[in-house]
């Protein structure tokens, strides 16, 4: 069973998108864990490793993504857990996406993305 952690780093309380994605991925047949709001990158990484997940989906709408998303990837590497695939979403300006990808966030899904695009990404990534 594919396990996915949906996580909200930073202080932003906008969790509508994160909760929708969590529920929709569950409906699509994945095992989903949702962290709740206001998680530090450190606590997200601890949960990801403890729960032995395959993917971490980060959601952030406050604009702190350039600081916090790469930190999650970095910490996963430090803990020898770089096999966990990180993707993200929220209010992310297009011009920030290349930077995030360079930092190891494999996909960024912004507002209005159909859920199928996310499941396609997950399936394709699993084939690799």
């Amino acid at each position: 069973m594919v396990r996915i952690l949906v996580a909200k780093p930073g202080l932003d309380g906008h969790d509508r998108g994160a909760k929708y994605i969590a529920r929709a991925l569950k409906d699509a047949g994945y095992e989903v864990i949702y962290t709740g709001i206001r998680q530090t990158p450190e606590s997200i990484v601890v949960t990801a490793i403890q729960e032995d997940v395959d993917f971490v989906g980060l959601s952030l709408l406050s604009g702190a993504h350039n600081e916090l998303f790469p930190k999650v990837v970095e910490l996963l590497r430090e803990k020898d857990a770089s096999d966990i695939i990180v993707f993200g979403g929220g209010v992310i300006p297009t011009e920030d996406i290349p930077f995030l990808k360079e930092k190891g966030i494999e996909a960024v899904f912004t507002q209005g993305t159909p859920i199928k695009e996310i499941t396609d990404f997950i399936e394709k990534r699993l084939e690799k």
Partner: protein
Amino acid sequence: MSEYKTINEKKADWEESTLKKVLDRFPEQQEEFVTGSGHPVERLYLPSGISEEEYIEKIGFPGDYPYTRGVQPTMYRGRFWTMRQYAGFGTAEESNQRYKYLLEQGQTGLSIAFDLPTQIGYDSDDSMSEGEVGKVGVAIDSLKDMEILFEGIPLDKVSTSMTINAPAAVLLAMYIAVAEKQGVTRDKLRGTIQNDILKEYIARGTYIFPPAPSMRLINNIFEFCSKEVPKWNTISISGYHIREAGSTAVQEIAFTIADGIEYVRNAIGVGLDVDSFAGRLSFFFNAHNDLLEEVAKYRAARRIWARVMKEKFNAKKEKSMMMRFHTQTGGSTLTAQQPDNNIVRVTIQTLAAVLGGTQSLHTNSRDEALALPSQESVMIALRTQQIAANESGVTSTIDPLAGSYYIEALTDRIASEAWDYIEKIETMGGMVKAIEKGYAQKEIQDSAYRYQRDVEDGSRIVVGVNKFTVEEEPPKGLLKVDPSLRTVQVEKLAMVKGERDNIAVTASLKALKKGAESEDENLMPLILDAVKKYATLGEISGILREVFGEFQESIVL
């Protein structure tokens, strides 16, 4: 002599003949029509046969109980709503410039957006603040920042709304302190603090303390302001964020009023007289795209609140029964795709708020699904309100949609469904209990999920997102907050800490701690004393965290 027929008999005839002929050949676009919130809409609404007595009881006159038609007897014929754009970003200096710009452009009130660390009681140098300083609003660490924020803005001339909840007492204290430095006494201050913690647990997320001490802080503010800052709106009970989290229109007003009931009950519980504080309660609602449903929603909300205050809490003063509210257009209705379309959405929502009788309005900017709004976008948003006010004509008569068969039927239906929710929550023991059980959160989430599924399967159309899409270039000219801002803010903070009288700060924090530990002391004067000595927001919130503990979210999925 022709045979007399009732409207309903005539309707049956019409359905059998005129309508059927057309339907047989041209079926309607959908099997079932629903409102923006997913409630069924009939093909045609007919006169309800309301008696004069029922009219007076349910609808009445503007400025009279139950205020369905509005809270003032002349509404916009007397004065337009307050045009109040929510703004703030980066440092106090930058935000101060934006406020002055908005005031020059004819805005009539200020609305302060604080960054998330400020809203959750962390200083800019706290490790929890990483990446968030100055992002969604202005960073305020101490009175020093507040002095800069309002530099050159006379606080006896403007009314200021502050979106601050868990640490509302601290920011209000800072505002009072800045005013006094300007030579403006407390009794002249006009404005609002959001101070609505219950919806933070339900939908918005910037809580700090558990419900009991949070309710105590709110009572302390009610009591302090009723004596010291009589023109201040002590709370803005907010449905806005409940709706943004995905609720229906009915849930928005039902949960907001249930929150209101909890605040009033609590304040009465600690011995406050209902009429001493209820007149300063204000509300805050959303405006989404279903124009007529929104108008009916505001009318229903006023009617329900009036009845709650009169019948449940025996309020005597008219002001205590009047639901005055601010409206903001719906952020979640804006699309990142074809952002200029958002100007049109905001225009519809503006009309909804105005036709619904709002007291003040924030119109969102077209680029808000992408970033913080640019100055140009903010101007279009403000102009939208000015056009509605000065050119559309809808302001010339009061509650112009009253008497529309549909509007009145919808108002009744929304009111009755909202009552069902309110009664259900009361049976659970009130909103705090309902939140602890995750009830409100779950109801909202289910609605949000249904809505998104409908968008995904195309049964609900969002222009530019799942229909009428185009390939577009990424937008240009978005406002970006300088990431080095945190360093600047941290340096400023260190300077304040170096310059202030640290012995006095420690003493004031000690006194605050002692006050917090004794349950019946009003904390407002103690907080005011601490901020005047330049104790920081993080230090004050830290002391209260020690005594009160922190709220833990119960995750509902």
